[in-house]
């Protein structure tokens, strides 16, 4: 049993002449929050897409809990244990908060292909969905249509949906994007509370949040890892300072 949750081996991806991912290897350990940082265009989202299965790498492999995911589709990878939130919040807009949770709960239980009993009055689904919503503090807004939710709450809901299937790896693509200071704070606390329960690969531009959350950091520039390590190690790294954090001297 390998002890890393996620292992990337020599991923390469280019779009024409543009190299988005270059011989990239990376590991995420169980229960850790691993932040992926880098300037715009460094290939962070492209990398997430390859882990998630929405983009095929040109070469290289993706392992989740020792299982080779390369070649699997998005739904197959989700069932293998990958949860994801997107850069632009991605929830079911035409439904209420609780209904969102219930549809995810039905999917988690493998019951989505049932035709007879009404879904939205099923007490088991309500129970499961309520537990999902409770984790992100949305239970008191359960009956609101998602369209009426504030932006920050939508992000929370998305996180809840990503967590619904109890993934072993959570991919969070800029969960604080567009959030106000209070919302960002709340999101940080909720992600903080997840530490140890699920491995998280986090893309985030809000450096305060990164410094507070990340157990380890990987710095990506032009598709390559230029540094990896703890926050203390990274902040001493000269290459990172010049390439990303900027020379403050």
């Amino acid at each position, binding site marked *: 049993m390998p002890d890393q949750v996620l292992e990337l081996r020599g991923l390469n991806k280019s779009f024409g002449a543009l190299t988005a991912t270059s011989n990239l290897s990376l590991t995420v350990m169980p229960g850790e929050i691993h932040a992926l940082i880098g300037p715009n265009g460094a290939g962070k989202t492209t990398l997430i897409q390859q882990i998630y299965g929405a983009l095929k790498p040109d070469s290289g492999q993706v392992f989740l809990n020792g299982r080779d995911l390369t070649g699997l589709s998005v739904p197959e990878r*989700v069932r293998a244990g990958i949860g994801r939130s997107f850069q632009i919040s991605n929830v079911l807009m035409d439904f209420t908060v609780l209904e969102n949770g219930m549809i995810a709960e039905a999917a988690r239980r493998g019951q*989505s292909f049932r035709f007879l009993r009404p*879904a939205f009055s099923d007490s088991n689904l309500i129970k499961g969905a309520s537990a999902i919503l409770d984790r992100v503090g949305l239970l008191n807004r359960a009956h609101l249509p998602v369209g009426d939710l504030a932006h920050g709450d939508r992000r929370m809901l998305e996180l809840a949906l990503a967590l619904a299937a109890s993934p072993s790896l959570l991919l969070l693509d800029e969960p604080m994007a567009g959030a106000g200071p209070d919302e960002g704070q709340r999101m940080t606390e909720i992600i903080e509370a997840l530490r140890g329960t699920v491995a998280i690969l986090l893309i985030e531009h809000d450096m305060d949040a990164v410094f507070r959350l990340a157990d380890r950091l990987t710095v990506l520039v032009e598709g390559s890892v230029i540094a990896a390590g703890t926050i203390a190690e990274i902040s001493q790294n000269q290459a990172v300072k010049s390439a990303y954090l900027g020379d403050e001297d």
Partner: protein
Amino acid sequence: MTGLFHFANLVRAGIRDNALLWMLIAGFALFPIFTHFADLPFWNDVAMRIMLLGMAAMGLNLVLGYGGMVSFGHAAFIGIGAYCVGISQFFGMTNGLFHMFLSIGVCGALGLVIGYLALRTTGIYFIMITLAFAQMLFFLFVSLEQFGGDDGMSIDRADFLVIDLYEPLRLYFLIWVALALVALGLMFIVRSRFGVTLRAIKSNESRVEAMGLVPLHFKITSYVISAVICGLAGTLFASWQEYVSPDIMHWTRSGEIMIIIILGGLGTLAGPLLGAIVFLLLEEFLPLALGAVAPAYAENWMILFGPLLIMVVLFGRGGLIGLLDKAGFARIGKRKMAVK
């Protein structure tokens, strides 16, 4: 009296989608009593046509309204269903149940193949590819000379064991039972886990994928179900019309059932049936009304029909059901949760 009071309360609170559906279906069950006493047997015929097109529209609505897939070729399944009767009779198979099972099998298989191929595309390409399949089948039947080609073939009303469809109202109630069963089935399907997942796919396909589900499986399944329903409507249509020709699967009929759905209310249970009622009644009455006002122009009734449809769609946003909703007579838009 209390019943009436209860009913008034119901109307004030807003009739729910499925309640409206069953009221309409109950209306069809009682309609022959009215035509009997009013001595208007012709209107039974109109009602049968409404029920048949309503049934087909309800079938299409599963993919169009609930699944968000704009299939522009569903008349093909109506046609195949009708030809299942014609061709069976040509070879001496007169049993109506056989026709139905044949139609379910053929339309299901055809729906699977067309759905599997067409659902790889979306948007305008999906519309075009479904239309292309339907046109292909249309011209196939035009070219099949032994089955009447362009001229079609005449059909005897199917043989339903002890039921003689030539007796008055037997066909009417056969169609009614089929309609009620289709309505019942759809009511279960759209509220089920499958149904809400299908609606979720319409709302946001990538989120459903992120739940570990394969949207294509749900889309194809709904496509097959809707093809089978349209096929069933087609087999009964054949007995009603006692005749089948490629005209039944002309692309304008695909458009007609689409308009019926949009007129009634996309993605609602009662919408397609309500749409069929209003659409076909307008088709009956507009020429008469125009004829009374301006006899010379009676045959140009479409010039009123078009703007009427446009107005309902523009101001209804959600068709007639949307209008009822706005006026406070129905509450379909705001889905109240059945949760404490």
